[in-house]
């Protein structure tokens, strides 16, 4: 060994009973004591506790250990804890190795004997490996003092504002023409029933006017590369065909535009818009956009130009081209939100066939002062409904579609019920599986709605049909369900049905996840670093999550997480520097034959060829340590620090040579 002779301390953790109940810790300790280079082997109830760490500290100082192995939980849990402890005691943190005898042995093995034997193997492997560990030093690199926020819904806006407030530059990217997201479509918010617009619009304006926020609406992130503290992002600004600097937002263009009858996305297609449009009156920025699919000039290259004619500011610019913007940021907050479940596949509810069957978002608009009926709850025939059914869990808690609970539907359904009672004299029937109202003042709201005379039927609706039981009721809808509490089948005649649809990951969120290099779970939600201990961070340093992109959330939770994300990001920035990855590739110039195979397999273009010396060289700022190059290099000139052939193969050999079980 080129380095100081190893002196290894091995520490076996009981993890309370989590390990000790299966693994015979004493015998593992005894076994470990006999292994090469092991100077001391001990056990303790909780190695991660401060006495546990103290034990390591003492041994390093008193016995002069230069390598440490802890056999306990997964390194993903506590590797950092122990590395820190080693560093504190004065040895390089990379002189540490962890054996995962909890997740990989005690928790997954039935027979205690086998569990113990497996634990021994894992310890032996860790010891064999750590003997070949090398001290690694990381380099401190400055962090870019700016943040990229992807998504301009309430989550993105809040993150941007909080971050901007702490003095950092924020780029807020939103693909739609205006920020605001779903919340801008709502009228009231549960449980307090304060008006969404009243809390939303000021925020939107604040975002627009904040000197630290650069608002990039109608834009999309096309690429992100780099690493924590130093990301390079390319952003596509789609052509608005309206000059933002000149436009006064007077709106004449929209009045005059002859291309009408285009279903309005913002109003859930309940109203129409023109080809040049601003999604809604309070849109931020006010500058409208021209829909290239609909504009007579752009789509059908007819001679029109009406908007140009009427625009006094001369802001219309049909020549506008897509523009690309390159920015450098230290952190990225992903806030891509959700999309509402499309109930069309559930044909038994008749959505799309029966005009009076609405999705919850459609109803939000129907009930909204800026909506198609200016806030009056009216049916397509202009009448107010006499009887309304609200169907819960449409798409949610349904093995055929989304097995999870979307968390917000119960509450907004009851909000609908309340608003219906308040604004109309309609009878309201809610059909639910369970009412889920976990949240401050939520249960109270549930009680209040009950007191307001809303009928709640526990039972999943089987069918909504327009065939009534009696001739005279044609034109109305019949809801067929079983009241599972009274065990009675119910055929309820109603005028309007609202489908409380669940939440799904937003369109394209998987692409964004790939862009920033994080994974999504089975349902497509982005996965956080740790469900409990790191709900905002992701496995990729410098990338944080806010709002529904990580899972269904209501507004309070979303805002909280948005601020948390901003907090994480800003604390990273205020630290000022990050240390470069230590576990990255190196290329030994003495061994490199200059075949440049490594250049061709590197996914990060982190390797350059030095023609002078005729060898390949790794750029340690770009290298992510994936090891593609080391595998591609037959001579072993290229390798990954801390994952060298030697280390991995010794680890393997210990398992296979020192094997404890099965030689019995």
């Amino acid at each position: 060994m080129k380095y100081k002779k190893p002196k290894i301390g091995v520490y076996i953790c009981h993890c309370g009973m989590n390990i000790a109940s299966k693994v015979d810790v004493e015998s593992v300790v005894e076994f470990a004591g006999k292994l090469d280079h092991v100077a001391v082997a001990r056990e303790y109830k909780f190695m991660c506790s401060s006495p546990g760490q103290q034990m390591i500290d003492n041994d390093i100082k008193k016995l002069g250990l230069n390598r440490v192995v802890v056999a306990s939980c997964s390194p993903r849990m506590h590797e950092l804890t122990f590395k820190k402890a080693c560093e504190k005691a004065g040895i390089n943190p990379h002189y540490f190795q962890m054996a995962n005898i909890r997740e990989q042995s005690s928790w997954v093995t039935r027979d205690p004997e086998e569990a113990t034997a497996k634990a021994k193997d894992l310890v032996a492997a860790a010891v064999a490996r750590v003997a070949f560990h090398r001290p690694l030093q990381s380099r401190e690199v400055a962090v870019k003092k700016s943040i990229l926020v992807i998504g301009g819904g309430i989550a993105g806006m809040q993150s941007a504002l909080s971050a901007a407030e702490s003095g950092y530059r924020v780029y807020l990217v939103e693909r739609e023409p205006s920020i605001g997201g779903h919340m801008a479509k709502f009228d009231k918010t549960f449980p307090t029933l304060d008006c969404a617009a009243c809390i939303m619009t000021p925020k939107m304006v604040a975002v627009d006017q904040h000197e630290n926020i650069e608002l990039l609406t109608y834009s999309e992130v096309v690429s992100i590369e780099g690493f924590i503290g130093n990301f390079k992002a390319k952003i596509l600004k789609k052509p608005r065909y309206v000059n933002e600097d000149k436009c006064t937002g007077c709106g004449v263009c929209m009045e005059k535009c002859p291309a009408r009858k285009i279903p309005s996305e913002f109003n859930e297609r309940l109203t129409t818009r023109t080809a040049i449009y601003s999604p809604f009156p309070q849109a931020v920025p006010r500058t409208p956009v021209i829909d290239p699919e609909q504009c007579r000039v752009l789509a059908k290259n007819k001679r029109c130009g009406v908007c140009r004619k009427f625009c006094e500011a001369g802001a219309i610019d049909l020549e506008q081209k897509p523009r690309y913007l390159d920015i450098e940021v230290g952190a990225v907050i992903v806030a891509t939100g959700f999309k509402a479940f499309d109930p069309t596949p559930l044909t038994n509810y008749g959505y799309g066939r029966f005009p009076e069957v609405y999705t919850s978002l459609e109803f939000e608009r129907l009930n909204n002062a800026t909506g198609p009926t200016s806030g009056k709850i009216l049916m397509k025939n202009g009448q107010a409904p006499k009887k309304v059914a609200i169907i819960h869990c449409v798409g949610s808690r349904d093995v055929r579609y989304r097995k999870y609970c979307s968390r917000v539907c119960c509450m907004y359904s009851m909000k609908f019920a309340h608003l219906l009672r308040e604004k109309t004299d309609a009878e309201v029937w809610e059909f639910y599986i369970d009412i889920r109202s976990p949240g401050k003042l939520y249960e109270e709201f549930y009680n209040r709605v009950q007191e307001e005379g809303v009928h709640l039927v526990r039972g999943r609706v089987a069918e909504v049909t327009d065939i009534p039981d009696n001739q005279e009721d044609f034109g109305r809808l019949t809801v067929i369900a079983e009241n599972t509490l009274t065990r009675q089948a119910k055929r309820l005649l109603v005028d309007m049905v609202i489908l409380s649809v669940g939440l799904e990951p937003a369109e394209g969120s998987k692409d964004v996840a790939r862009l920033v290099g994080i994974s999504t779970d089975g349902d497509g939600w982005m996965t956080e670093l740790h469900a409990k201990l790191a709900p905002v961070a992701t496995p990729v340093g410098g990338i944080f999550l806010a709002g529904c992109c990580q899972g269904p959330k209501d507004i309070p939770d979303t805002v909280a997480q948005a601020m948390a994300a901003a907090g994480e990001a800003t604390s990273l920035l205020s630290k000022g520097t990050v240390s470069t990855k230590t576990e990255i590739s190196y290329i030994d110039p003495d061994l490199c034959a200059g075949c440049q195979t490594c250049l061709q397999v590197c996914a990060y273009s982190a390797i350059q060829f030095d023609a002078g010396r005729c060898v390949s060289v790794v750029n340690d700022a770009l290298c992510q340590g994936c090891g593609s190059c080391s595998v591609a290099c037959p001579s072993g000139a290229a390798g990954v620090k801390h994952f060298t052939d030697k280390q991995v193969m010794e680890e393997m050999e210990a398992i296979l040579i020192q094997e404890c079980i099965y030689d019995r």
Partner: protein
Amino acid sequence: MTDDFEPKIIVLVCNWCTYTAADLAGTSRLAYPANIRIIRLMCTGMIDSKYILKAFLDGADGVFIGGCHPGDCHYINGNLKAKKRISGIRKIVEQFGFDPKRLRLRWIGASEGPEFQQNMTEFVESIKALGPTSVKDRMIL
């Protein structure tokens, strides 16, 4: 092959997907045979042919490699590079009498704890069915 044959299986997994899946299997207490020994690497694209050969020559009865699903690789495409290489190694060891079934590559995502358990169980079963390799009772060469 004897009934009490307990194979020794090396499992090479990537840190981001399959290792996480293994942890998830642990936290969810999903039991599987104790024959497997996990070696954690950063990416399946890091798995050198030497590792696989050494495993077999040092007496492993099977080698299981677990990585991220295509498209989910933390390093963009390490898993696909791995697949290409491993197919070659499989061909080589096959020539020397190691049943190709002894070297298995599977994509197991971070959230797929049950899949990890299932894969381990199945693989151990299939190796038991194959019996020990003839390396088993030799000293290392």
